[in-house]
């Protein structure tokens, strides 16, 4: 079929089952957008390229599909960088198609030229510069395959402008042939047998659930293994929801702002089964004293993660979709009564959790941020998707929002990107239009991509934006309070910007809540209403996120909260 390069790109997207593109036009992609117009290809125009890439990321996290982004050359592509890096470190599948200046202009410092492959090499799973239209179908086929298989990640395809206009006899490849990448990750049965032996000998085992469980859609297996063993479990930020909050033995978030019982269990356990996680410094605390009494078993598809930060006693390679079913089969065939064997350990950590839950001091005179998040959580259904930005509100959300299923809690974990939340929530809603989407953000983060409220308005995308408004960059302020003599250096936000009016100016509704009783009288109604809205909630400035493991300390050296209860 004879067509031009732009048509070939869109035709390839159709073959890959792409439902929607997030993007922003410009000089180098005019031909691509002209064909998109003629083909009526679904597209969401954001108000900034960074918004487009985070939206595609949110879409991918909510649906498990590959998010697709279009941007123009030079500044357009450069504006994607933060979003690509965000997706890369959290292993989110994206295909970003950027225009490049036309072939004869490459390397001449031409107008809107930037070396996109050079810039994105460290933050992509792979990238391509397409200078010949005949390469387009193969490159697109490979890009989607690479993005979605194995450890997912972003792939950038930089296409010279003249390639979009060049003619090609289009045929989409049936198969991918890459000599250096099969996308297959077999497991090792002998390693799994060793895990079973370790479990037979263990007294105090602990499951540690990472983002790999979300990515591989193996949470049902993990839940079943956890139930069968009667062993407690903890989670990384990226693993939240894989085990439903409230499940027997589930101790919640571990790490810097993790639960007391979760961190103590890590330090006390004698066997730690780590599932699809990468031992980030936010999770380990002082890395040399992480889980000092435990044999560490690492289930991981990416071989480069083994021994990177924490040495593993047993490495279980391969896709969790291969290793976990095998482990489950062997455990279910084992004569050992694990539930009996681990019973007293489970009782011990459950008691720790009951004695030291996430807590805060309720106030009559002000809305506590934790109380707000508990209320949002209580008003959520299992279908609700909650996205966050980055900072104190993110950690409170991780602590107080009861995530019930994977892909429910969408957050920038590895990169910690402020400004991620609003466009990511937008993308999640586009991908899951029938599910409620709530963004929990702060007065700092929301401003970093506030222009995307206009995208919500213009496209009737129903996202409820809950701003935890404390008039400060809260996490920066917390560190300044704790470690920098209360010097609030450039962290105070004076709050002269009226976020309600800003929302209204952008074309969505705005509300302000200042009184604790409004969580009962107004919040439910606003969250249940049709259409996008911003809810500006004033909270006290000085609230800390606790517990907290200060930098360089062990996980059991937490600063605890003074709170009384978790309602």
């Amino acid at each position, binding site marked *: 079929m004879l067509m031009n390069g732009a048509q070939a790109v869109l035709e390839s997207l159709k073959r890959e089952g792409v439902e929607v593109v997030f993007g922003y036009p410009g000089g180098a992609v005019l031909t691509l957008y002209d064909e998109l117009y003629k083909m009526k290809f679904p597209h969401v125009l954001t108000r900034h390229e960074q918004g487009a890439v985070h939206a595609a990321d949110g879409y991918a996290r909510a649906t498990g599909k590959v998010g697709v982004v279009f941007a123009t050359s030079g500044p357009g592509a450069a504006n994607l960088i933060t979003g690509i890096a965000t997706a890369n470190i959290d292993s989110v599948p994206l295909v970003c198609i950027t225009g490049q200046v036309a072939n004869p202009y490459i390397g001449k410092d031409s107008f809107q030229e930037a070396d996109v*492959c*050079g810039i994105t*090499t*460290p933050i992509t*799973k*792979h*990238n*391509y*510069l397409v200078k010949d239209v005949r390469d387009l179908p193969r490159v697109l086929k490979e890009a989607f395959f*690479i993005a979605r298989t194995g450890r997912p990640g972003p792939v950038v395809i930089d296409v010279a402008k003249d390639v979009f206009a060049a003619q090609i006899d289009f045929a989409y490849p049936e198969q991918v042939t*890459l*000599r*250096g*990448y099969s996308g297959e990750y077999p497991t090792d049965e002998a390693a799994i047998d060793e895990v079973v032996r370790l479990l037979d000998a263990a007294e105090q085992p602990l499951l540690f659930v990472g983002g790999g469980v979300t990515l591989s859609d193996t949470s049902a297996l993990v839940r079943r293994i956890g139930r069968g063993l009667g062993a407690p479990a903890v989670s990384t930020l990226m693993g939240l929801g894989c085990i439903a909050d409230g499940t027997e033995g589930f101790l919640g978030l571990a790490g810097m702002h993790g639960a007391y019982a979760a961190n103590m269990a890590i330090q006390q356990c004698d066997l730690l089964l780590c599932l699809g996680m990468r031992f980030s410094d936010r999770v380990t605390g002082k890395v040399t004293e992480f889980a000092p009494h435990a044999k560490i078993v690492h289930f991981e598809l*990416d*071989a*480069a993660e*083994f*021994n*990177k930060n924490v*040495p593993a006693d047993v490495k279980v390679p391969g896709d969790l979709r291969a290793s976990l079913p095998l482990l489950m089969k062997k455990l279910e065939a084992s004569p050992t009564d694990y539930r009996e064997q681990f019973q007293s350990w489970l009782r011990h950590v459950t008691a720790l959790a009951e004695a030291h839950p996430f807590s805060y001091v309720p106030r009559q005179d002000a809305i506590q941020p934790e109380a707000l998040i508990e209320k949002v959580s209580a008003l959520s259904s299992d279908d609700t998707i909650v996205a966050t930005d980055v900072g104190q509100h993110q950690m409170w959300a991780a602590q107080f929002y009861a995530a019930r299923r994977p892909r429910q809690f969408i957050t920038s974990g590895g990169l910690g990107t402020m400004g991620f939340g609003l466009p990511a929530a937008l993308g999640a809603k586009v991908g899951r239009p029938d599910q409620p989407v709530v963004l929990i953000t702060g007065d700092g983060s929301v401003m970093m991509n506030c222009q995307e409220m206009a995208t919500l308005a213009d496209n009737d995308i129903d996202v409820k934006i809950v701003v935890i408004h404390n008039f400060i960059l809260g996490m920066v302020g917390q560190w300044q309070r704790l470690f920098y003599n209360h010097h609030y250096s450039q962290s105070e936000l004076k709050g002269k910007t009226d976020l309600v009016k800003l929302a209204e100016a952008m074309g969505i509704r705005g509300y302000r809540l200042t009184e604790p009783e409004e969580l009962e009288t107004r919040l439910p109604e606003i969250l249940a209403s049709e259409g996008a809205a911003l809810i500006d909630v004033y909270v006290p400035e000085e609230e800390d996120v606790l517990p907290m493991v200060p930098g360089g300390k062990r996980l059991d050296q937490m600063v605890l909260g003074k709170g009384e209860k978790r309602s």
Partner: protein
Amino acid sequence: MKKFLLAVLVDNKPGVLTHVAGLISRRAFNIESISAGYTEEPDITRINIVVSVESENELAQVVNQLGKLIDVIKIVNLSLTDSIERELVLIKVKASKASRADIINVVNIFRANIVDVTPEDVVIELTGGQSKIDALCEVLDEYGIIEIARTGAIALSRGPVPVKAM
């Protein structure tokens, strides 16, 4: 620190050297030398990397991280197999009438070659292992080395099996 020579077979495509070099720098791996060239197969480039690492674990990190690059087809640690390692060096040395005979003597002892002569200097070519090249440089130092160009080490395994079949 221990040195290892890795033979890395990669797709002969634009951007592949950027991918490899970028990875080495961002992961802060110590490399002694890196060289690349065509192979018996036109679409495969062989990159020879000498890494210097503190531990087995660090070596595994280098290999596993390189292995993640899509365009890397195969990595073999030739230092762990029976292999022949060579490096080429060109050395430009000051050579006056008085010193020239001595330099020629040194060149002969090392079985090196003189590949260019001018009234003020000679250019010497030597192929060998790293220690031999280092030794020649040390001896020539007293005559005044003007400049040195070294290729970095390359290696082949001994016996009929190529790296791609290992």
